[in-house]
């Protein structure tokens, strides 16, 4: 009972990791299922953020230095630039195909 209460009250590494894992899974799920290019990009963002969360968590609980936070900053930055480029490309797609449904853009195949 006490342990259970402790677990509820005192949040530990595991909780973060589980949340990160869930985020990652969600991201993958979105990426796999969505047809809309934008949503797929969002899925990718989720994946990246799950990783970021892990870094922060690890750096706080286990390594004890700030490396993790620094990594996370980098990740956020990359996510941003990726999103920027992604959106640009999606725009181009929209101009050429008049849709951003990835199933509509299947000219390249064997």
């Amino acid at each position, binding site marked *: 009972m006490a342990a259970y209460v402790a677990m509820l009250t005192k949040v530990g590494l595991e909780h973060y990791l589980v949340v990160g894992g869930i985020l990652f899974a969600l991201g*993958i799920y979105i*990426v*796999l*299922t*969505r*047809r809309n290019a934008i949503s*797929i990009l969002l899925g990718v963002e989720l994946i990246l953020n799950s990783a970021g969360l892990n870094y922060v968590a690890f750096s706080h609980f286990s390594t004890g230095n700030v490396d993790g936070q620094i990594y996370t900053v980098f990740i956020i930055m990359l996510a941003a630039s990726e999103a920027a480029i992604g959106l640009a490309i999606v725009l181009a797609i929209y101009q050429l195909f008049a849709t951003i449904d*990835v*199933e509509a853009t*299947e*000219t*390249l*195949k*064997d």
Partner: protein
Amino acid sequence: MDHPVQTDFLRWIVLFPLLGAAVNGLLGARIQERAGKRMVAFIACAPVTLSFLFSLWAYSRLLGLPAKERFLIDRFYTWIPMGSFSVDVAFWVDPLSAIMILVVSGIGGLIHFYSIGYMHDDRSMWRYFAYLNLFTFSMLLLVTGDNLLVMFVGWEGVGLCSWALIGFWYTDHTNTRAGNKAFIVNRIGDFGFVLGIFLLYWTLSGQGQGTLAFREIAEHVGLLADLELWGVGVATLVTILLFIGATGKSAQIPLYVWLPDAMQGPTPVSALIHAATMVTAGVYMIARLNGLFSAAPATLQIIAVVGAATAFFAATVAITQTDIKRVLAYSTISQLGYMFLAMGVTAYSAGVFHLLTHAFFKACLFLGSGSIIHAMQGEQDMRQMGGLRKVMPATFRTFAIAVLAIAGTPFLAGFFSKDAILWQAWATHNQLLWGVAVFVAGLTAFYMFRQFFMVFFGQCRADHHVQEHLHESPKIMTYPLWILAAGSVVVGYLGLPAFLGGSMLDHWLDPVIHVPHGEHHAVMEEVGVMSVSIVAAAAGVVLAWFLYYVRTPSRDESPEARGFAYRVLFNKYYVDEVYQFVFVGGTLLLARVGAAFDRYIIDTIVDGTAKVTTILAWFNGLFDKYVIDMLVNAVANVTFAVGNNFRRVQTGNINSYLYVVVGAVVVALIVKLRYWS
């Protein structure tokens, strides 16, 4: 016999004809148009004459030596030096081969001269003489070669020339087919012959005496005693294999079928190759290796039986034939049967003796028939002839002498030689074979006189056109006839029976041929045996006289009109048809099967993947898709099939791509975690 006399002129006996052949063969065409046919003929006849003279020289050299040392050798060069196996190109002349070279170059020479007249109108005379010389070369090589391999060279060489000469008029396929038949049947014989050579060589070398030279074989023949292979005595096996070769070359059952067809060639060729010389090669070979054969009694039995059977079989066929040359051809086969019978009963010298006499009278008969055919403008059917004795006196007389000789008229060559064989058969207690032989003697007399009467007596049944042009042949053709006829008379006296003073020939051959001196027989017995054959012959003559002289044959009597037996005989027991069907047909069938296997078998392999193949055929156009060789294509098609399925994955749909990624990761994880728990 231990110190052979080294000489260096024997090679010329062999090489002269080769020279002639080379000159005529390479330049003949030009020579013929520049210098004319006479030149060609000269180039051809001169070398043979020279060989004959050299043969006489060799013969005289032999005479000069004491009987035991009559043995000349001429080592030319080492042909195949191969470790323990070393073969020289060497020629030797001993009493046996002396006789042969005299016959070959002598009778061969006569036939060369005869051919000048006979082939006078032929466009490619040069080719003819080139072949003829080449044949003489090969034949001389065959008889003078001092070891089996060199002999085999000649052996094959004569086969080649006979092929070339049978098919000499190659624009007619019946001729070329006959030629091929002769060659291939001989090859079957050679198949046995070479295997015999191998077995003999390796058995001897197993005994530390690997050799193929006749003398050494004769010396070491004892080594073969009680050696076995596959449960058969090696000596027996070797001799049987060699005998297979002999049946091919000398037209014995079962390989005799080529000889009658061989009559498609020019008649002088039939005389030289298919009567006097080549066909006797088998007999010569056995006589040459008599020591070896004597060591294999089983084989001798076989040979004797085959010989007698052939003699009988051929004779029966001969009595119904209407083609003048075919009669002679079957008679040749039959006479060869006699010789093999002689070999079989170890009467080697008697066999050689018959070979000698037969060479004369059979050559004479063939040349005579040639002269007749010449006069009849190529007609060979005896039913069209008749009454020729008036128009062609010389041919008639010589032919008569030869017929008498072969029929076994007392005191002519055939009589003595045939009788020697019969007597030996009797003396070696082969009464049954003797009986057969005697009966065949009667048949021989019958069919020879049948021919004689049909051709020369009665009214001429040829049409007018032919009759007007009937004429005696030119001297160049008749002189050889006379010489041969003379030979058919006198040669017999070389081998008189014991009670008439004994055989010079036996004596002459004694050093090389081991004549089994059986128990002594009473003179009366010999005389009695002899008289029986005389009676048989006489009976044959009389019968022929009744059937073909008294009631003269009609112009176009057809064998179909006769009884069943007659038809069977006339159609040579249908052996050709059977062979054609069984062996030729069989081989071709095999060949087709083989080729088909090569082309189609893979189909069945592919059938399993046939569906895939058909589905994919269209893009398989990369390589020809209907190509038969399916093995490669099968591989190709299957690969392409798989490839195609891979392509399906590449749908172009990004989600599916990602599925692949995640799927892969998951699979990896699952596999790994599984393999821990």
